[in-house]
């Protein structure tokens, strides 16, 4: 039985607390009486993943066994989540590989010949050969690449179809191959409660016209808790679209969940509470700290991004999407939930080197905002950890750095749009259309490995709720000019940040620190 999540109070005997700091780490002393939220320890993984997968496929929830859905001569499409999940990428074999191998085997047994595997990238970048190979494994890769294993292309007008309009009047689009298949098997990996369910198909295989129905400022401001689907307008909208898709094409959902064993042995200390650090952990911390202080950025980035997580499978469910997703959410919550009493004036968080949109890439300033205020801030159920009007303090070097292959539209978003305004609603009104329809971004999105032109907008909208909720945002250790461009305040040290926060929340504020990653979900009561 693994240890559940905990809230520990900082007292005189507490060791300093770990803060992630981009491609680096720092130990900080939090004020006495601050509370630190620790995620539960990794759950015991399923001992025989293959067996569990086979069982799930043979005994689906509210659906026929997969074997019975397969017949010779049918058109089968397997779609799967792209590299934005999980974070960091999973050490091989990826659970999706295990699931897909099983599905492909069943299909082969049933005599299915027309099988396509599509990476459900949505408006994310095309994955490279190597990245796809990492997820699907050598066997599937060599069999299907490149003709029957490829990335979804949301900007190919011929390869996407409009399948209807939801009761709310939103357009629903779908990858043509998927739409015309006799069966779509969706292979998912759910890391946080926001992912999976109907959202998988409704965003992963859709186009800009479909996705903009829920990826917009209004919807996100209306989603009081991104991580609690019933409270989230985002999910309502996705569910409507998903239902329409299910009316149109037969979908068999397979969802998997993993534990939170996010860091390999070398970075074991990141996984543990500071009080549990062994001398070996302290030594690795020191070594890593030295490396990250001294090494050139490229080297640091290479080292950090080559870390693969030894996740263990905690659940696999197949069948009808609603039932499957309920089970998955249960497993995910079990792994993440920390019960917290009430809100505090300040929440602090250390931002790591990695967010969903910069795997093998740079966490640029816009993505820093997306990660801190869009994701970590929203890791709650019910109400945010920080009270309305409170202060969010984040640590990240926040450099003016962009990956020009993956994030070309982010560069222009930062240079042009943020120079004008940081207000999400205004940004949406004034600029979204132009970026979304820009020919050059469209070309880069389709032929290179660039995120869609509109993607930086979504990254920014994701922070809309936090921007409206927080009274102030302070970035510790960030490049001053960059932080100002983002519309925040820059502090050199954490102590300075607390001093600055005083103006908003008074002399003796209450403080919570999210000790994450590994990810946690604060259940605030």
């Amino acid at each position: 039985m693994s240890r559940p999540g905990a809230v520990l109070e900082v007292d005189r005997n507490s060791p300093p607390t770990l803060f992630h700091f981009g491609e680096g780490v720092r130990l900080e002393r939090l004020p006495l009486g601050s509370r630190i939220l620790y995620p539960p320890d990794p759950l015991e993984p399923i001992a025989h993943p293959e067996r569990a997968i086979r069982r799930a496929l043979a005994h689906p929830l509210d659906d026929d066994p997969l074997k019975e859905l397969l017949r010779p001569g049918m058109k089968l499409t397997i779609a799967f989540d792209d590299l934005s999940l999980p974070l960091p990428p999973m050490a091989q074999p990826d659970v999706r590989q295990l699931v897909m191998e099983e599905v492909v085997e069943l299909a082969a047994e049933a005599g299915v010949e027309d099988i396509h595997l599509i990476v459900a990238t949505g408006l994310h970048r095309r994955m490279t050969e190597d990245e796809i190979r990492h997820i699907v494994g050598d066997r599937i890769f060599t069999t299907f690449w490149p003709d029957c294993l490829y990335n979804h292309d949301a900007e190919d007008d011929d390869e996407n179809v409009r399948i209807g309009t939801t009761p709310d009047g939103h357009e629903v689009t779908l990858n043509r191959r998927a739409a015309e298949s006799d069966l779509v098997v969706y292979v998912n990996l759910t890391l946080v409660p926001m992912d999976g369910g109907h959202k998988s198909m409704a965003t992963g295989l859709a186009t800009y016209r479909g996705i903009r129905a829920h990826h917009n400022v209004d919807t996100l401001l209306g989603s009081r808790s991104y991580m609690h689907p019933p409270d989230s307008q985002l999910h309502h909208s996705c569910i409507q679209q998903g239902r329409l898709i299910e009316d149109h094409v037969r979908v068999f959902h397979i969802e998997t969940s993993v534990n939170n064993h996010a860091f390999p042995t070398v970075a074991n200390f990141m996984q543990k509470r500071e009080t549990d650090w062994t001398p070996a952990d302290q030594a690795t911390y020191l070594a890593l700290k030295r490396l990250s202080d001294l090494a050139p950025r490229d080297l640091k980035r290479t080292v950090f991004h080559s870390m693969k997580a030894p996740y263990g499978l905690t659940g696999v469910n197949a069948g009808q999407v609603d039932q499957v997703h309920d089970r998955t959410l249960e497993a995910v919550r079990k792994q993440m939930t920390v019960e917290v009493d009430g809100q505090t004036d300040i929440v602090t968080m250390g931002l790591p080197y990695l967010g969903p949109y910069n795997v093998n890439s740079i966490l640029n300033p816009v993505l820093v905002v997306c990660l801190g205020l869009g994701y970590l801030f929203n890791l709650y159920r019910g109400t945010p950890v920080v009270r309305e009007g409170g202060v969010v303090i984040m640590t990240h070097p926040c450099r003016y750095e962009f990956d020009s292959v993956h994030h070309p539209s982010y560069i222009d978003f930062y240079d042009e749009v943020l120079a004008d305004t940081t207000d999400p609603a205004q940004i949406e009104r004034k600029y979204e259309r132009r970026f979304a329809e820009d020919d050059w971004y469209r070309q880069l999105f389709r032929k290179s490995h660039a995120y869609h032109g509109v993607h930086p907008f979504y990254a920014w909208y994701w922070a809309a709720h936090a921007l409206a909720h927080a009274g102030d945002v302070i970035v510790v250790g960030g490049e001053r000019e960059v932080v100002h461009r983002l519309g925040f305040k820059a502090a050199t040290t954490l102590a300075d940040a607390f001093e600055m926060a005083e103006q908003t929340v008074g002399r003796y504020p209450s403080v919570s620190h999210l000790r994450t990653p590994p990810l946690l979900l604060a259940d605030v009561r």
Partner: protein
Amino acid sequence: MITEALAGKTLLVTGSTGFLGKSIVEKLLRSVPDVGRIYLAIRSSTRRPAAQRLQREVLASPAFGRLKGELGEAEFERLTAAKLAVLEIDLSRDGLGLSEGSLARLRECQIVIHSAAAVEFDNPADLSAQTNLLGATRLLETLIKTGNQPHLVHVSTAYVGGMLRGLVKEELPHDPGLNWRHEAAVLTTLRPAVEEESRRPEVLERLRKQARSRLGPAGTPAQARQVERLREKWVKDRLVERGRVHARSLGFTDIYAFTKAMAERAVTELRGEIPLSILRPSIIESALAEPQPGWLEGFRMAEPIIFGFGRAVLRDFSGLPDSLLDIIPADYVVNAVLAVAASPPPAGEYRVYHAASGSRNPLRLRDMYDQSREYFGEHPLRDRWGQAIGTPTWTFPSRGELTAKGKLALRAVGAAQQLVERLPLGATSTRWSDDLTEQQAKLERSLNLADLYGVYTEVDCIYDTHNLISLWELLPPSERATFPFDPATFSWHHYFQEVHLPTVIRMARADTGPRQGPGPSGSTAPKPETSSALNTLQRRAGRTDVMAVFDVDGTLIETNVVEYFFWMRLRDQALSEWPRFLAQMAAQSPRWLYLERRSRAEFQRSFYREYEGLEAEEMRLLGREALQAVTLRRIYPEGMRRIRRHKEAGHRVLLLTGAVDVVVEPLAELLGVDLDCAHLLQKDGLFTGDLQSPPSVGEARASLLQEYAGRHAVNLAHSFAYADAISDLPMLELVGTPVVINPDARLSQHADQRGWRVERWKMAPGNWRLPMPDPRSATHREAARR
């Protein structure tokens, strides 16, 4: 006295497009409303006829702002139409090139104010002699020929006496026993000899070397033009030098003072029955009160020094701190001219007047230094970071000492510049080189100033103003207020702090206020104020006959042909082969660097030999991969934005590059633009290492562009070209809007001289990587195995 004497008179003013000339005309119109008619001696220039010059160069001047304000536009037009008339006179021709009608009008003139002169101290010898000396004699001879005997007011300079000590009387200057006719003949015939000298083999050879070092890769025509420009400059410098040495050897401060002195001799000798007044102002500076305080045109003598002091460029200045610096406000000179014009000497006589401050209200060099210190202490100039610049402390060393020090520093900077230009460092070396060029310019400027004006700060004499003050004493009090010209009536403190120094700052458009808000920083977009090209682009939106041509390597992408090749070859080989290949490349690199500096074409030819024996199809595939791995990673976001802007504006966009098709075609396809690049010959599916056509560099690029423009009906004069290297010069020269991107040292200097737009585009930081494929990639391993 003045108004009465001038009422109803017909005047001729020469040099009316000059500073003093138009000030005189303005004062006449404003303060002597009853003046009869004023003829302005203006010559038609090659660009516009005389009547237009009157409007554009005289009446449009801010000098007339006050009068326009007082009268209103309509009344002003009426007044000028009634009083002013152009008299086409060409002082450089015998007989002044007068028509019959003009001659008749010249005959009407009762007063002639001759203020035309080539006033720069560093004019070529022949120009000074033509304008200052022969101009005056021609005017006088023509006046005599008309049979008329108008009062001639000849404006000269106080420095005609040369470098004297003690009191300088208002009489003809000392005569070093020179014949002005002979001097004029010598100086005006210097040019052919110098031209001849400039074509001597050793001179031409040296100039050619200079041109090649600066413009080598730009091609032969560009080099040839550069040699001719250098030669013309050489001739001019020689003539200036000749004039200066000539004047100094005869005891004059410079060629201006010398030719003016000769002119005084000439006019007194030739005057016949014409009453002649010679007015010698000292150093004319901005007006004290009229037409407005601080009225000044062009930087004159003291301004460069004052400004150099304020900017701390002149770290020190030579001169005697207690020597008199004889400065006189322009409006005082104007009034003195009018007073003199109103009091002609008897026929056949001449009288000399000094308009100088030294005897009545002395200003010492140290006073000016103190005034400037006080002023810049309160209103410091700002550097480009908005920081206040502290003023230097001058120790007033001797001129020799200062010059020696300066020359030494200049030589050091020159040597450093040579070194930096040869470093293969790209943008870094450009930055260093720009800094050095700036340093060099500063040093040269201060040396020049010390050389030109240093003499004036060592003049140890006082100009007697007895004659002028006698006129002043005759003036009734009412006119004294309207036409003040006694230097004792103002204070230098007021003049410098309230009038002159603010004018200097205003004219230099220097910043004295703190900077307004932070500019956008840390961004790949150029600062808005630097991108005037964008405005031009907007203005030409929607025109289909406009094109934008972009160089690729170095302009749109921070890379060159070598890096692509490097990447593709590494990608093509197994990891174990890398060291051998890298060693091969390293051994070749010095030769390539040398060739690249000499000529782009030679370099490309030599480099493309490396492609020999490679499979064309394979390279084509690798080229597509290189797009992701090299091209798009090293791209300048602003370049992409600019191309899109051009496309949005409906312009035709062409990429013109020497890179091979396999690596640039994918980019052009992605951008959806036209492309002209190098193609390699193939035989049996293998590259032979030869180019299909000569590399398009230098002038070849220009002709390619012309051909393209002809084919697509493009108007090059309204088109844009973006490039980064000196070898693109011919292409840049061809279009109306050349934009220089991250220029190399040599192109940077060119752009600077021609006022071309220079933009600095940056890669998004964090993307610089060695052009090396990831050896961990499974795909790479598999491909290499195949």
